[in-house]
């Protein structure tokens, strides 16, 4: 049980990164980015490209992947989302699904469906009072916590963060007050892409690289963001921890293959009982 809680905590940290990314873009652009799963996958493959193909050590490959995916996300914003900004948000949803489809198949085009692995050394797990913590889990926890700390500092302490929060609150008012909306949106996408890429690298580190690794986390990520009150990055972290714990603890009772199924049930329950999320403000409109 204690082991399950520990594993759940680590997997919660992992889910938190894309959940924050999802909440950031939702808060500022007011649409749910359905390509977040494909973005995670793309991040993993970018790291794989830098690490296994170009031979860069993983500590270099991971930031490269984050920067690369950040740039791709900004590119997609300019090429797709910005052009349909004036359409209703359903159109944006459908467009993000199209983006996911293109990204996923571009990856298949380049790398096929083969299962790959990053070129990293395998280390012995740490043991402490009968609890085992894999080296990879430690890296995941540390990397995710540092990334969250950086996001928190950016959001609360910088001009960019203030601008992002202002736009999330009221985009028109923020623009009237002289906040450069387009540039803030670009930075939000860059941050969102970097977070998704980091999640992809961490997932790949703990397992394998294949075209569906991000999609397999899609339901968990959305469930986490909804629990946290979608659009609220800090809530998303709490939601991710809850989802991580519920998934791992439920694995004691139901088969691990149903991890996403458990997330689906949690998602439905939250939507029925508390649709604004556990930490969201009740300002949900239809």
């Amino acid at each position, binding site marked *: 049980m204690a082991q399950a809680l520990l594993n759940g905590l680590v997997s919660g940290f992992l889910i938190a990164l894309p959940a924050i990314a999802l909440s950031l873009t939702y808060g500022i652009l007011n649409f749910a980015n359905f390509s977040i799963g494909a973005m995670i996958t793309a991040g993993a493959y970018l790291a794989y490209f830098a690490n296994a193909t170009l031979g860069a050590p993983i500590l270099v490959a991971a930031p490269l992947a984050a920067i690369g995916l950040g740039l791709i996300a900004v590119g997609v914003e300019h090429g797709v989302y910005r052009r349909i900004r004036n359409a*209703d948000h*359903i159109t944006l949803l459908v467009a993000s699904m*199209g983006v996911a*489809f293109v990204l996923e198949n*571009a990856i298949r085009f380049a790398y*096929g469906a083969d299962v790959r692995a990053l070129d990293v050394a395998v280390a012995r797990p740490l043991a402490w009072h009968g609890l085992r913590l894999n080296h990879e889990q430690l890296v995941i926890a540390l990397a995710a916590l540092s990334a969250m700390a950086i996001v928190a500092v950016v959001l609360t302490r910088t001009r960019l963060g203030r601008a992002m929060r202002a736009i999330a609150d009221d985009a028109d008012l923020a623009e009237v007050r002289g906040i450069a909306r387009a540039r803030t949106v670009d930075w939000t996408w860059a941050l969102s892409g970097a977070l998704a890429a980091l999640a992809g690298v961490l997932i790949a580190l703990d397992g394998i690289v294949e075209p569906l690794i991000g999609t397999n986390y899609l339901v968990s990520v959305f469930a986490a963001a909804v629990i946290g009150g979608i659009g609220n990055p800090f809530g998303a972290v709490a939601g991710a921890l809850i989802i991580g714990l519920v998934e791992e603890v439920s694995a004691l009772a139901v088969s691990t293959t149903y991890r996403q199924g458990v*997330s689906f049930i949690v*998602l439905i329950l939250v939507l029925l009982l508390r649709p604004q999320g556990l930490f969201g403000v009740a300002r949900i409109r239809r």
Partner: protein
Amino acid sequence: MMGYLVAILTFVSLAVLLGLALNIQWGQAGMINFGLAGFYGIGAYTAAILAKHGVDGFTATAAAIAVTAAFSAGVSLATLRLREDYLAITTLAFSEAVRLVLMNEVWLTGGTDGIRDIPRPLVGVIGGEHYEVAFLVACLALIAIVYGLLERIVSAPFGRALRAVRDDDVVAATLGKDVLALRVKAFAVGGAVIGLAGALHAFYFTYIDPGEFAGFVTVYAFMSVIVGGKGSNRGLMAGAVTVMILLEGTRFLKDVVPVLSAQQVASLRLMLIGVGLIAMLIYRPQGLSSEYRLSARQPAGAEPGS
């Protein structure tokens, strides 16, 4: 060649049915269904499992329609008071859950091996030789029936109320429309058509596995509706045919570009579909033909739907 043509036309028929379903859910009622593939799978597996247990094809198809409609109503109920995003999230998550059940409940679905040798209805009467052609004729007849029914629904007061809810649910509610019931019904009607398509899929291929009910099915259906013009059933037919021509036409890419492997050509074709979908949304969001509307033109500068 004849056989190929019949096969393609049967695929197109299934795509048209899925498009018609999405067109009432999304086009008419404004309810987004990102889990269409999952509902399609439910229809196909219901028909296949029943047929394998000796239920005759027509009863199995009716059951597939009923079961898929019931699941659609249930899933839509969970999010009806919320914004459209939540229905999108829930249907997508539902579809993933369906895929997990299909892959893991081996006792029921055969797992990743799928279900093979699904008995076809009336195969004894028609005979194997002309069965494909007869099946296509049946599909076309069913499309005609579904199209007729949906057109009636669209032009009936129910359809008008649906569009009113889609365009502004507060106004519709103020006018005394039961917004909740309208939405559940619309989603269930769409689900019934998806269930029918699923059953036809199972009987046509006589073999199904979970991989056939993945996200690309949903993307094709959205592409058909977007190309045809959201809300227009006639446009949708053209849209579904266009998408299938694109899909089948690009199949020959591998003859033109021999350096690519079959896998790469397949990925490239799907990429093209995705790019096409995005391009349509950007450059021609109203599709090839737009919904017939009685309303006066919007004054210049007004943003529709906001």
